[in-house]
């Protein structure tokens, strides 16, 4: 039972990690390999806030979000927009380049060691029906759920959210109706980055951070996003829970060495059998070759 609880708590976190990635793919059909790096920066912002100003990690979340929002916005506006639609892989590679740039900047400032944050309530937990629930994890879980809910509501019910959803469903039709696609893309990218930032902040409170963590986090987000179906908020949440569940179970049965491997195997399995994931509605094939430029 303890395992189950761990899985649930971690699952929500994973879901938040992946939501930014999922939105980006769903709306713009790009794989942002810099997503992991964005998360890493979010984590470092949180860390910096904590060290320099003593701001609690939960409170610094909006700062993380905003910081990444700005970074994402600027990046899209000046760099990414030039290669939208040039070819499906170009986006990936540009984001890769960008992630290297970012990683280097963080390396310069913070060097390569591991950092951690311990708040006053770090180790404390309460016990409920024989299961231990650390306060921090509970907080992370609640916020993660909150964010997912907010996102869902945003996408469904606000004008901006509906605009974004419209573009994700069919960008040509959306432009016909008068939606400024470039602006939407710009905004979406920034929102995706902000989500990554917030997720990073959350991550910083429970895990150790280091500049190279971008890669493993990216991989996890990808697995979660794929599992749940790219472009779909609820899917992402389910995906997060699924991954956490499988990881925990797998680690329990096979031993802790196989952590990463499980995620990878799971993902490959899902990709082979059902690329749309559990709830995804955006199948890759929907993006026809007309849009994929020649390289």
């Amino acid at each position: 039972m303890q395992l189950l609880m761990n899985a649930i708590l971690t699952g929500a976190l994973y879901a938040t990690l992946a939501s930014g990635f999922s939105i980006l793919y769903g709306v713009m059909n790009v794989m942002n390999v810099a997503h992991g790096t964005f998360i890493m920066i979010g984590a470092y912002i949180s860390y910096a806030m904590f060290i320099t100003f003593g701001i609690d990690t939960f409170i610094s979340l909006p700062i993380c979000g905003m910081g990444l929002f700005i970074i994402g916005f600027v990046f899209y506006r000046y760099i990414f927009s030039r290669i939208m639609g040039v070819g499906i892989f170009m986006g990936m590679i540009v984001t890769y380049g960008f992630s290297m740039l970012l990683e280097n900047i963080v390396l310069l400032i913070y060097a390569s060691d591991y950092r951690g944050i311990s708040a006053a309530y770090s180790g404390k937990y309460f016990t409920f029906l024989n299961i231990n629930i650390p306060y921090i994890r509970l907080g992370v879980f609640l916020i993660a759920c909150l964010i997912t809910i907010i996102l869902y509501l945003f996408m469904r019910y606000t004008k901006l959210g509906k605009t974004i959803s419209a573009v994700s469903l069919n960008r040509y039709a959306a432009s016909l109706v008068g939606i400024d696609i470039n602006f939407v893309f710009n905004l979406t990218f920034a929102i995706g980055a902000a989500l990554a930032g917030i997720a990073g902040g959350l991550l910083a409170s429970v895990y150790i951070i280091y500049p190279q963590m971008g890669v493993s986090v990216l991989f996890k987000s990808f697995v979660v996003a794929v599992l749940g179906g790219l472009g779909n908020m609820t899917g992402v949440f389910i995906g997060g829970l699924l991954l956490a569940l499988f990881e925990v179970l797998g680690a329990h049965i096979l031993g802790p060495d196989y952590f990463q491997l499980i995620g990878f195997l799971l993902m490959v399995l899902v990709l082979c059998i059902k690329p749309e994931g559990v709830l995804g509605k955006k199948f890759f094939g929907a993006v026809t070759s007309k849009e994929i430029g020649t390289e």
Partner: protein
Amino acid sequence: MKLFLKYFEDTKLIVEKHKWLFISLFIIIMVLFPLYTSNYLIRMFSSIFMYACLGIAMNIMLGYIGYAAFGNVAFFGLSAYITMVLLNKTNIPLLIIFIIAALVSAMYAIILGFPILRIRGHYFAIATLGIAEGTREVMSILEITGGGKGISAPILEMSINSIYRIVYYSFFGLTILSLFACYYILKKPFGYALRTIRGDEDVAAGVGINTTYYKVAAWGISAFIAGLTGSIFAFWMGYIDPVSVFDGMINVKFTVVALLGGLGSVIGPLIGSLLFELISVFIWEKFLDIHLAVLGIIIMITIIFLPRGIMQFLKPQRRHTK
């Protein structure tokens, strides 16, 4: 300015016409190269050729078929490991070890290929990344491969100079062979099939091309080349561990090299590698701390301004397509 451009165009045409002459010249120069230069340069060029080979392997996948096999480093590393293990435990001659290791990598690609190559586009790219990660994990878990500590090769009774030269010639030879292989592929129906798949896979299937066969074969070839490169690398380094051989940086490097050189061209990766190494070395000297950042910036600039790679400038313009 116009005159210069015309001159440039004419030069390109001349080079193109007398390709074989220039290629032979190049080969001769490169073969004689190690006799007259310092070890440092030899190492640098070994590195250039190594990345050229990897770039070629990547080019086959990305350039010809259009599948972004970002995880090709898995084959590089796997082969390196097999080489090490074989070196340590058996007495098989070196060349045979290389070939065995590369074959195993190719087998790995073929076996994995069947399920994984069904996945398309972006998904495929990250699936291959996943494979690279997964293979790394497996390597660090198994006992025979030394776990996280890595393996070292037995000490060879050869001077440093000989080793450098052997490595240089191996990489060089591999590059030439791969280039010829690519050239051959381009001209033969096999290459046409690959490029059709790249254009539009469903149409290719509709025309009667057995896409699975070609995809798997291409990946197998790509893995074989990457594998050979990995073996030579293992021999060169004398010590490998999971982190160094499955390094994401290697991945990035050969992707950049392939892109820089221009996808779909034969010589592209070689030129790309040359350029890239030169720039890298320059950056390392002057800007050590920020070399990663500069690399990233180069990547971004390359993508934005040179989507077809440097070959854009080096291939003569065909008049009739103007």
